């Protein structure tokens, strides 16, 4: 077995039992790893209707075959569970080194079941696996927990913060302090199991089918990444935050909870300003030549980030132009272990609720949640993390918050997950990916911004509808493979399906083509869909917030437009081989080996 370690750890916290399962290699080849294999295992093992925060839900940490190999960016892992935020499949991706370290310890993944009767952490030192008392770190922030549990240079710490412990449905799983499997509330599932952390030490190697070919493939891939102006220059120099200005100039930077598409102070919070004033150094993930990660410092805090999405959520979406405050909010999200996108978007929703006069009963403790109030934005970010005061009410995300005040329409979510930093009224294909993403409002399930705004791999008219469903399907399928493989999605700015097939073949010993890569991605996309349908997530939830479908963009280059979902969705269903109501047909499922 090449590329895989061949072992899955199964830990039942109710029974305090530890088992090692053999990896089913045929299953692994079919679902690749990470997002694919993890979803298949979860679907086989739990009732998709389960309460996500009950002991019957499981949480799976899964690597791909390329994690832990010398392939550039090969260090990513995924957290798969049923989401407590959306009720859909949750599969959150994270970088750093922890995923690769798990392979070096000898495991492709970990399945955690049940619930411990008191706070525990799992300590893995290759074959030595223990469930240990975590009372000394329970309640502590992510940084301090990491310091305490980090014992060796070959050790990596994955942990939740107080956000996960207190079951915030926006809680993240953090590793190496500030790398996050951020979305869908996966941290709350760990918290519900009384599982604080997983500490991994390992020094093994991943065996490769063809070492020499892999070396050559890695050289080629590294060269392509270096020569490509985006992965070789744009991302390394400015990080993801360089997007702020280009998205704003196109009039699709959601501002004041998606009320507008242009933020007048965009340059104040841009990647350029970040690089000029606050950037200390780059902060790359394991074996990554791109190094988009940032490490920033202000007078008050220093740490990893902020990323583009974070800057948008606490910046334009909350009307805040103070980049220092945004860096601070990012820091506290990482410390409390909560998702920056969902937290920022929930604050923005609260600001609009207040603007409408619906929060008159709320005690703001002197920190008024008004658009543009940077101090209050930071204050309430911390209170969400600690679930105190009005923060407790916001800690379960914008949909639950807005529903509680009778204004569900102000929640800018799809399937309960807060939308990220692009207004779909001006990027029609991207809007279709939001509506059809299996985990809800997400930008990294088919990043159509790439062709629609950035011109990669070719420039498409962002308002054009023709051919967009096909583009979306291909992007979604390719992304599903990349997420399953253990590589970073950002490699796709420079590499294509054929490149991934070549890399995969030399590592695993298969003979795949680019088409096989896309087919595997399609299989993964469909099994996620099947999980959601079985969980009761109906296709009528393949939609966007009413504001984006009915209210014309009021300003900027996208003025006068809405998102034209009804013109795109039928063709998308057809291309997917789903019936008119959005249910996968038996024929397509059989074709994909899922029937």
């Amino acid at each position, binding site marked *: 077995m090449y590329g895989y370690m061949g072992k899955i750890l199964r830990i039942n916290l109710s029974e305090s039992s530890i088992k090692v399962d053999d990896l089913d290699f045929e299953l692994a080849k079919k679902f690749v790893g990470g997002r694919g294999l993890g979803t298949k295992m979860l679907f086989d093992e739990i009732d998709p209707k389960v309460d996500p925060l009950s002991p019957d839900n499981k949480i799976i940490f899964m690597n791909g075959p390329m994690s832990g190999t010398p392939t550039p960016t090969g260090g990513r892992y995924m957290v798969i569970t049923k989401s407590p935020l959306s009720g859909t499949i949750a599969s959150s991706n994270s970088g750093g080194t922890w995923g690769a370290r798990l392979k070096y310890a000898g495991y492709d993944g970990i399945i955690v079941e049940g619930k411990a009767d008191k706070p525990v952490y799992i300590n893995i030192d290759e074959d030595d696996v223990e469930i240990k008392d975590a009372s000394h770190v329970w309640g502590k922030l992510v940084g301090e927990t990491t310091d305490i549990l980090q014992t060796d240079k070959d050790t990596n710490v994955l942990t939740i913060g107080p956000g996960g412990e207190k079951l915030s449905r926006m809680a993240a799983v953090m590793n190496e302090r500030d790398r996050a499997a951020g979305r869908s509330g996966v941290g709350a599932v760990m918290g519900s199991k009384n599982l604080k952390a997983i500490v991994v030490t390992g020094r093994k190697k991943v065996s490769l089918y063809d070492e020499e070919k892999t070396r050559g493939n890695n050289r080629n891939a590294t060269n392509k990444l270096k020569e490509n*102006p985006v992965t070789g220059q744009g*991302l390394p120099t*400015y990080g*993801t935050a360089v997007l702020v*200005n280009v998205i704003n100039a196109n009039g699709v930077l959601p501002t004041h909870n998606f009320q507008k598409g242009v933020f007048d102070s965009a340059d104040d919070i841009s990647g350029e300003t970040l690089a000029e004033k606050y950037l200390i150094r780059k902060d790359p993930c394991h074996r990554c030549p791109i190094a988009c990660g940032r490490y920033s410092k202000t007078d008050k805090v220093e740490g990893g980030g902020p990323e*583009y999405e974070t800057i948008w959520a606490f910046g334009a979406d909350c009307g805040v132009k103070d980049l220092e405050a945004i860096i601070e909010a990012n820091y506290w999200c990482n410390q409390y272990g909560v998702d920056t996108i969902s937290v920022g978007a929930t604050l923005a929703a609260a600001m609009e609720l207040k603007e409408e006069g619906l929060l008159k009963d709320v005690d703001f403790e002197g920190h008024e949640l008004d658009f543009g109030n940077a101090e209050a934005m930071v204050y309430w970010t911390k209170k969400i993390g600690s679930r105190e005061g009005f923060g407790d009410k916001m800690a379960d995300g914008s949909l639950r918050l807005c529903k509680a005040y009778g204004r569900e329409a102000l929640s800018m979510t799809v399937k309960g997950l807060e939308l990220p930093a692009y207004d779909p009224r001006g990027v029609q294909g991207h809007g279709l990916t939001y509506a059809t993403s299996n985990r809800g409002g997400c930008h990294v399930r088919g990043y159509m911004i790439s062709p629609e*705004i*950035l011109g990669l791999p070719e420039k498409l008219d962002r308002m054009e509808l023709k051919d967009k469903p096909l583009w979306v399907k291909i992007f979604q399928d390719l992304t599903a493979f990349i997420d399953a493989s253990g590589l970073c*999605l950002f490699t796709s700015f420079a590499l294509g399906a054929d490149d991934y097939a070549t890399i995969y073949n030399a590592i695993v010993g298969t003979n795949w083509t680019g088409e096989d890569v896309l087919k595997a991605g399609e299989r993964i996309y469909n099994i996620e869909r099947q999980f959601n349908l079985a969980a009761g997530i109906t296709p009528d939830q393949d939609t966007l917030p009413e504001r984006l479908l009915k209210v014309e963009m009021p300003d900027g280059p996208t003025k006068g437009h809405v998102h034209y979902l009804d013109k795109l969705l039928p063709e998308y269903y057809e291309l997917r081989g789903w019936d008119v109501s959005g249910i996968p047909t038996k024929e397509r499922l059989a074709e994909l080996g899922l029937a």
Partner: protein
Amino acid sequence: MITVKLYAYLRDNRGKVVEVEYREGLTIQMIADQLSLDLNDVSIVICDGKDDIPSKMKDVLVKPDSLVHFFPPVAGG
């Protein structure tokens, strides 16, 4: 006056915003030349809300009060 906005490393030695005097027949290519900007280093041009790659935008005629953005290859997510 035409307002030209530059981003990322295109700002080096040029600044963030440059004003260019309007004259009849002025194109995006001519503005780039005036700023010693090689359009090969530009990935996206936006002129008065219309965005496209430089080869499709270079012959666009600007208006006396046009707003033009030049972006180098950037990405994120």
